[in-house]
């Protein structure tokens, strides 16, 4: 039961980047289209889950004073793995996500989960936490990407959804659109939260 709770909190109650306001850079930068957002989310989920597993498994071995250095080393290792695999098998995607693949290493969500959760809990719970938070993050990125893609390019996952007469609001896929929509979504989340309490 507690495993399910550790998993599901990431999907709504603690969903990143809305409830846990971290990891904003990739959120803003790669959500020009729904599939880019999804890909970035999944790459982050992989690194997050793997680092959670290792941090949790080693939690009684790593001395407190070097724990942050160890976590960074672990996270960086998995980030490089994602970089290599993506270059080898998904090169076009690697070119689109570009600099934000190596920057997974400084995504505060991952270090935050290592410090706040995985370093204190058993491995299974840490896996549930990593997958849950990761999928929640992927969902957010996909939704934000979808909104911007629909308004800014008139497509969703690359398929045209409006008639040929639709003139796209290009500004949505440019940087200002990212900031404005993330802010508005955050406002909507606040309304929903308050309505429930």
């Amino acid at each position, binding site marked *: 039961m507690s495993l399910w709770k550790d998993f599901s909190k990431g999907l709504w109650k603690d969903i990143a980047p809305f409830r846990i*306001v*971290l*990891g*904003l*850079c990739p959120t*803003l*930068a790669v959500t020009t289209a729904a599939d880019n957002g999804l890909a970035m989310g999944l790459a982050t989920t992989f690194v997050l889950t793997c680092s959670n597993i290792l941090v949790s498994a080693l939690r009684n071995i790593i001395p407190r004073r070097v724990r942050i*250095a160890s976590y*960074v*080393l672990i996270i*960086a*290792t998995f*980030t*490089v793995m994602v*970089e*290599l695999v993506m270059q080898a098998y998904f090169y076009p995607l690697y070119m689109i996500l*570009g*600099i934000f693949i*190596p*920057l997974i*290493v*400084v*995504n*505060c969500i991952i*270090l935050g989960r290592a410090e706040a959760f995985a370093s204190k809990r058993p491995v299974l719970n840490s896996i549930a936490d990593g997958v849950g938070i990761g999928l929640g993050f992927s969902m957010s990125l996909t939704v934000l990407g979808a909104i911007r893609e629909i308004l800014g390019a008139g497509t969703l996952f690359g398929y045209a959804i409006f008639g040929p007469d639709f003139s796209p609001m290009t*500004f949505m896929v*440019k*940087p*200002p*659109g*990212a*900031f*404005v929509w*993330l*802010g*508005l979504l*955050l*406002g*909507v989340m*606040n*309304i929903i939260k*308050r309505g429930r309490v």
Partner: protein
Amino acid sequence: MHEAWTFSDYILLVIGAIFVNNILLAQFLGNCPFLGVSRKMETATGMAMAVIFVMTLAGIITWIVQTYVLVPLRLEYLQTIFFILIIAALVQLVEMFLQKSFPALYQALGIFLPLITTNCAVLGVAVINIREELTFLQTVVYSFASAVGYGFALILFTGIREQLEVSGIPDFMKGTAIGLVTAGLLSLAFFGFAGMVG
């Protein structure tokens, strides 16, 4: 990037990095501390100074390591690990150095320094220097100009946000939400600079 850069090319690089491709508002690097420290002008200025200091140093050191260590040893694929460790170590060293030698400056920057390790703008600029195949001098100029651009956007934004604190904003938009929308408008304003550099 090719050889024989004239002085005006460097000026363009600087203007481009500060206004047109502002690292915060156009390239989305370093947004977490951006929203975190922009509530008060004092903290924003401190953060801006610390970023300028560390980003310039980090850009230079990572460039040297990449060119004279990683490339000759064919270890380019470990770039991410090396860079983040260099930045973390650099921040520690700077902290210790300031504490001993410039206590006043340390007082001002102290609490912001540890935050910088996870500021992705620092790692971001270091990686961009390498990806764009900048020369050493270009790296120095670009790292510094990007950092100045970061500080500039941060301080501008903080000014606006201090005003927002006393304005009548619907409850659900208070805090980060309105902050992001404001950043969007600021980013839109910076778009106007795109015409400056043809």
